[in-house]
């Protein structure tokens, strides 16, 4: 299949600047957590559960990671096509967790939660590209759902480059074929909190991709914001109806 046809269409029929079907819900797991969310970016689907702030389970011993925020990701083997088992200590997943911790440490107003722990766990249900962005978006929503104070939204998306054309929100096929940048943007600003590139990219194309990526992040932020407001109104109406 053509990754990007001369007629300007991608293999799945999108144009260069179109994001995939983005669907999100919050408060999906009321009983098992303090805050929860479900995010779908195309066929990438993740569930995020937040517990806390709560007392540090082993108060005597200082937790190894000095942070009060923990992230764990579980990837069942049905996540990918090959049905490959993911090892618990897979370095790539560990790295992903560290990235997420370091991102949200700055965004959550940690000084409000001294000597407590916020534990975030993510379950990936299906993987079709854009795993890190989905996780970031899901955590943002779940933290909001848990009522944890944050400075702003963090929204995230990836941008790839095909020849000279930037492509927004890559799926798995495109991720395999193209070099791409993953960005996490704070709120409606142009400030980048998270930035990750793993394949070669010409320096001269960086600016272009950053610009498109920031626009994409803002779009995601807006959809998330709508969902939060929709859910808020729903709750409000439930209360007022009582």
């Amino acid at each position, binding site marked *: 299949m053509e990754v990007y046809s001369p007629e300007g269409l991608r293999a799945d029929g999108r144009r260069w600047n179109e994001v995939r079907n983005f669907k999100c819900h919050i408060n999906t797991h009321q009983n098992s957590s303090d805050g929860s969310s479900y995010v779908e970016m195309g066929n990438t689907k993740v569930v995020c559960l937040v517990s806390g702030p709560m007392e540090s389970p082993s108060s005597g011993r200082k937790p190894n990671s*000095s942070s009060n925020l923990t992230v764990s990701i579980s990837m069942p083997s049905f996540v990918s096509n090959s049905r490959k088992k993911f090892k618990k200590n897979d370095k790539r997943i560990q790295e992903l967790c560290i990235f997420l911790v370091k991102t*949200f440490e700055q965004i959550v107003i940690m000084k409000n939660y001294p000597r407590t722990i916020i534990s975030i766990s993510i379950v990936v249900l299906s993987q079709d590209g854009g795993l890190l962005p989905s996780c970031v978006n899901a955590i943002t929503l779940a933290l909001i759902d848990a009522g944890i104070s944050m400075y702003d939204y963090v929204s995230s998306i990836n941008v790839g480059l095909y020849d000279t054309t930037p492509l927004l929100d890559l799926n798995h096929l495109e991720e395999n074929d193209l070099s791409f940048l993953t960005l996490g943007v*704070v709120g409606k600003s142009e400030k980048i909190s998270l930035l990750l590139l793993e394949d*070669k990219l010409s320096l001269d194309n*960086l600016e272009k991709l950053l610009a498109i990526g920031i626009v994409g992040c803002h779009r995601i932020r807006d959809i998330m914001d709508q969902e939060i407001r929709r859910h808020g109104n729903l709750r409000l109406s439930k209360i007022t109806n009582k």
Partner: protein
Amino acid sequence: MPKGIDVSNVAKDFELESLKQGLRLDGRKLNEFRDVEINIGNSYGSVDVKLGKTRIAVRISAEIVAPFEDRPFEGLFMINTEISPMASAMFESGRQSDEEILISRLIEKAVRRSNALDLESLCIIAGEKCWSIRADIHYLDYDGNFADISCIGVLCALLHFKKPDITINEHQEIIVHPINERVPVPLSILHIPICVTFAFFNPNDVEENIKGDSNAELIVVDPTMGEELLAYGSLTLTMNKNRELVQISKAGGLSIDAMVIMDCSNLAYEIACRITDQIREAIKADDAKRAEKRLEIRL
């Protein structure tokens, strides 16, 4: 920002205050990279690199193994990074800390994933035999910025390393020729990725960083250990002389404006070019030395 060593508030304030005035404790400018010192050892692929007080030793070794089943046409390349307490008291032996994971992944991406070493050229008989190249990085002393120095060290060592020549006879058997018998062959290095790390400091409070428009964050290139302890987040750019970004890694920390990141990458490119030339020269000088030695004895 590695934890484990606590810095007193006085020291912290002093350092931040001087950074605000554009001064660093070791006398460098904010955008100045420390001098790199490359020492090439006697045997092929052994290199000792110093970056200020940070010091590492890299050894390359090669053996013939079976390739991965899903990659029959490629050889193996492993980078072993174990940071022991020898480098600094803040590293524990045994369990890997977050920082170590990040550093090893970073080197992995910068050198291995970017195809700096041509894995395809390591194939001997597809699906059966290939070269496995292993780079061991020994961290000898720590004064910040392991990522950049590791990358320089591994690349120097790879460029310097030579593997024994081999031939395949008609029965598809591999004959390894000892290096005295046949001139050993260098590895095929496709490009030289150079890492440049920036550390961020926030002179104001967090809210200003996130909500404000001032973009007053202080950015320091090639942080020392002291600076790393105080910094809020870092950005490592890896690039080569062809103006290719090889990897970017900014794991959270202070939010930085996109334009500032662009400035950083342009600065990083200049530094990368300079270091690339330095590496090339070091290798060339060593080659020349070896050739001369050989000439002296033989001809």
